[in-house]
C-alpha cells in the first residue's frame, strides 16, 4: 500500500517517460551483451584465433602510452599554469585547452601532410638546403606516431580537470607547503600529485575512452585495433555477427577500465566545487625559470594547435575555390541538421530524466542517471553496432508487417537518418545530462517546492520555474553536445545513410583518398566551431564563481 501511494505521489508521467528513455538508451548495449554469449561462427573463430591478440596488444599499447604522456604533459601544464605567472599567462590558460578543438583524426592527417615527402618540411629541406632525408625519420604512420597524435590533441582533458582542481580546491595545502619552505619541485611531487590524484584519474580516463573510441587515426595510420576490426567485420565481410562479438569484447574491456578508475580514484570526488574556497594565487616567475616555463607553453601550444592550424589555413587557401560549392553547402546543412536535432532531443531527454531523478530522490532516479551516463563510456563503433542490430531486428518486424498489409516490403528504419540520430542520443546523452544535472544541483529544490506550495503541479513548475533557472546549463549542454556530434566520426561512418555525408565523414573520406588538401576546408569549419564553443564555455566558466 505504502509503495503504491508513494509511486502515485511521484508524478507518474515523469517516471514513465524516464523509464522509457532509459530503456531505449540501454537497449543497444544490452543487445550486444546478450549476443556476446551466443554461439560462435567460423569467421569469429578465425578472428579470435589469429587476430584478437593483435587488436588487444595494439589497443592497449596505444591506451597505455597515451595515458602516460597525457598525464605527464597535462598535469605539468596544469600545475605551471595555476601556480606561476609568466607573460601571456591569461592566453595560455585557455589556449592550452584549444587543441581539444582539433579532432585527433584531423590532427593525424595534417601532421602526415606536414611530414611526408611532399610536405612542407621535406620540400623546404630539399629545395632550400639540398638535404635529402631518410624517410623513416619522418614517418608517423605507426604506433608511436599515433601516440604522439593522441597525446597532443587529448592532453587537454587531463589539463582542464587538474587545473580547475588545483585552482579551486587545493590552495591552502599548496600555500602551506610553500610556507614550510618546500621548493616548487618538491611541492609538486609531494603535495600536488597526491592531492590531485582523483582529478588526474578522472581526466585520464576520459583520454582512454577517447582512444578506444577512435577510428580515424588508427585507420589512417593503418594500425589494427578493435575499431578497425569492427569496421572490417561489418563493411569488409558483412559479418554483423563478428562485429557484435568484437564490440562486446571491447565493451567488456572498457567496463573493466571504468571499474579500475573507480577503485583508483577511491572515495574522493574531484568536483566538490564549493565556490567559497579561496583560489590559488599564481606566483610571478623570474630569470631562467620564467624562460623555461614560457618555452614549454609555447612549444606545447605550437605542436598541439599552432602548427597544424597554420598548415590547415595554408591548405584552405590552396583549395577553397574548388571546395566551396553547393555540395559543400549541402555538407554543412547535413551536419548542422543532424547535430541540431540530436542536441535538441538530448537536451529534452536529459531534462526529463534529470528532473525526475532529482525530485524523486530515490534509487530509481539514481539508477536512471547512471544509465544515461553509460553511453559516453562505450566507443562509438560499439554503439553503432548495437543500434544497427536493434534497427535491423525492428525492420524485420516492419518487413513482415508490410508484407502482411500487401505493401512493397522495404528496409525502412535501418536505412534512415533516424537510426543515426538515435545513436547520437545514446552516445552523447551523458554530455547534456551532466551539464543539466549540475545546473539543477546549483539551484537546489527550494524554488520548485515554493512553486508547488503556491499551487503549481510538477509539470507546470518545470516550465515556469525549473527550466528558467537553469537556462545557462541548458545552453552550455546544447553547445557541448552539438560540437560533439559535429566532430563524431566512427558512429557516423557506420550509420550514415547511403550518400549522406557530414563534415566529419567527408573530411575523413578526403583524407583516406590522400586528398588531404581538399579535406582542409571542412576540417577548418569543424575546428572553428569547436574553438568558438570552447572559448565561449571557458569564458562563462571563468566568470561564474564570484
Amino acid at each position, binding site marked *: 500500500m505504502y509503495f503504491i501511494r508513494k509511486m502515485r*505521489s511521484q508524478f507518474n508521467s515523469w517516471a514513465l517517460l524516464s523509464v522509457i528513455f532509459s530503456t531505449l538508451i540501454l537497449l543497444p548495449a544490452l543487445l550486444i551483451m546478450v549476443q556476446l554469449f551466443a554461439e560462435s561462427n567460423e569467421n569469429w573463430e578465425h578472428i579470435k584465433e589469429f587476430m584478437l591478440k593483435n587488436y588487444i596488444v595494439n589497443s592497449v599499447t596505444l591506451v597505455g602510452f597515451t595515458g602516460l604522456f597525457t598525464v605527464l604533459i597535462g598535469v605539468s601544464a596544469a600545475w605551471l599554469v595555476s601556480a606561476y605567472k609568466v607573460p601571456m599567462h591569461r592566453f595560455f590558460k585557455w589556449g592550452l585547452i584549444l587543441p581539444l578543438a582539433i579532432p585527433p583524426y584531423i590532427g593525424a592527417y595534417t601532421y602526415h601532410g606536414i611530414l611526408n615527402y611532399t610536405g612542407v618540411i621535406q620540400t623546404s629541406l630539399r629545395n632550400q638546403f639540398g638535404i635529402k632525408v631518410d624517410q623513416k625519420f619522418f614517418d608517423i604512420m605507426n604506433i608511436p606516431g599515433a601516440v604522439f597524435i593522441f597525446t597532443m590533441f587529448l592532453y587537454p582533458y587531463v589539463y582542464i580537470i587538474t587545473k580547475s582542481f588545483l585552482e579551486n580546491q587545493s590552495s591552502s595545502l599548496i600555500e602551506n607547503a610553500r610556507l614550510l619552505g618546500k621548493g616548487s619541485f618538491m611541492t609538486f611531487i609531494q603535495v600536488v600529485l597526491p592531492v590531485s590524484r582523483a582529478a588526474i584519474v578522472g581526466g585520464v580516463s576520459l583520454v582512454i575512452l577517447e582512444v578506444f573510441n577512435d577510428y580515424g587515426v588508427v585507420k589512417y595510420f593503418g594500425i589494427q585495433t578493435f575499431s578497425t576490426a569492427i569496421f572490417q567485420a561489418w563493411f569488409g565481410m558483412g559479418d554483423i555477427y563478428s562485429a557484435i562479438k568484437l564490440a562486446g569484447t571491447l565493451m567488456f574491456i572498457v567496463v573493466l577500465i571504468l571499474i579500475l578508475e573507480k577503485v583508483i580514484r577511491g572515495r574522493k570526488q574531484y568536483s566538490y566545487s564549493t565556490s567559497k574556497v579561496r583560489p590559488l594565487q599564481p606566483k610571478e616567475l623570474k630569470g631562467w625559470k620564467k624562460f623555461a616555463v614560457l618555452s614549454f607553453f609555447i612549444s606545447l601550444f605550437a605542436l598541439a594547435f599552432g602548427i597544424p592550424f597554420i598548415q590547415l589555413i595554408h591548405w584552405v587557401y590552396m583549395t577553397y575555390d574548388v571546395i566551396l560549392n553547393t555540395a559543400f553547402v549541402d555538407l554543412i546543412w547535413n551536419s548542422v541538421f543532424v547535430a541540431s536535432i540530436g542536441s535538441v532531443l538530448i537536451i529534452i531527454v536529459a531534462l526529463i530524466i534529470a528532473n525526475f531523478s532529482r525530485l524523486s*530522490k530515490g534509487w530509481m532516479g539514481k539508477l536512471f542517471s547512471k544509465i544515461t551516463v553509460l553511453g559516453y563510456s562505450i566507443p562509438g563503433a560499439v554503439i553503432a553496432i548495437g543500434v544497427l542490430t536493434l534497427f535491423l531486428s525492428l525492420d524485420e518486424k516492419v518487413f513482415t508487417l508490410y508484407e502482411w498489409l500487401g505493401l512493397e516490403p522495404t528496409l525502412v528504419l535501418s536505412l534512415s537518418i533516424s537510426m543515426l540520430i538515435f545513436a547520437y542520443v545514446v552516445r552523447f546523452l551523458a554530455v547534456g545530462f551532466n551539464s543539466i544535472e549540475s545546473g539543477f544541483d546549483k539551484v537546489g529544490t*527550494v524554488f520548485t517546492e515554493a512553486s508547488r*506550495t503556491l499551487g503549481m503541479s510538477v509539470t507546470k513548475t518545470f516550465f515556469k520555474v525549473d527550466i528558467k533557472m537553469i537556462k545557462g546549463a541548458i545552453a552550455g549542454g546544447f553547445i557541448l553536445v552539438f560540437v560533439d556530434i559535429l566532430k563524431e566520426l566512427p558512429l557516423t561512418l557506420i550509420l550514415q545513410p547511403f550518400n549522406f555525408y557530414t563534415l566529419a565523414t567527408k573530411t575523413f573520406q578526403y583524407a583516406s583518398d590522400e586528398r588531404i588538401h581538399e579535406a582542409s576546408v571542412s576540417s577548418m569549419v569543424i575546428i572553428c566551431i569547436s574553438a568558438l564553443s570552447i572559448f565561449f564555455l571557458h569564458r562563462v566558466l571563468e566568470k561564474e564563481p564570484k
Partner: protein
Amino acid sequence: MFVQIKDLAFHYKNSRNPLFENLSLNFNQGEVSVILGESGSGKSTLLRLIAGLEVPSRGSILIDQAVMNDTFRFVQPEKRGVGLVFQDYALFPHMTVEKNIKFGLTKMNRKQKQARMEELLAIVGMEDYASRYPYELSGGQQQRVALARAMAPNPSLIMFDEPFSNLDSKLQLQIRDELQEILKRTGITSIFVTHDEEDARAIGDRIILMNNGKIQDEGRPEMVLKRNKEQLSLAYV
C-alpha cells in the same frame, strides 16, 4: 481542530534513525501556534510533511477535516492550499516582486490578479517595489514579499520556517511585530517555527515544544516556558 496529525512516522532515506514515530498533534483554527525547538529537532521536517513536500511512512494528516494523507491517499502539495514561507524566502530570482506575488493566483483573471497583488503589497507595506527583482531588495523587504506571496492565494493555513533567522536583530523585532499584527488582522491559522524563546513568547497563542522528533510539552506560552525553564535555559546558553 484545524490540522490533525495522527500517529505520524517519517524517516529520511539517507539517515539511520526514524525522525518521527507516532507523532500526534493538533493545531487550532485562527491561532498562531509556535513550534519551538533546538536546531535539528525536526521542526522544518514537520512543516514539510504538512505541506506535502515529504511523504510520511505511516499515519495521517487532516487539514480542515479533509484527509491530506493516510494509508491510501496522498494529496499533492499544490492541491493542499497551504502557504509556506521558506527560511531563505525562495523568491523566484527571475521574476519581479509583482510576478512573484501573482505566481500563485492561477484561478483569477488579469484584473483580479492585479487587484490582489496590490492589496497584498499594501498589507506588507511594499507598494513601491512591484517592479523590483528580489536581488534588488534588502533582507527585510524580501521577507515581506515572501509573506505576501504565500498569503496571496488565500491559503487556509500559513506556515513560517524560522522567518527571522536571516535578519539582523533590530529588524527582527520590527518585522515580528508587523507579522503578528498582520496575522491577527487576517485571522489566518498559522504555524510558526523558531528556535528563539523570545519570538515564541511574543508571537504565539500556543507553544509546542519539540525535542528530537517528539512533542515534549504544549500549552499557553507562559506555562510552557515556565514549566521547561531549566531545560530551555540550558539549551540556549
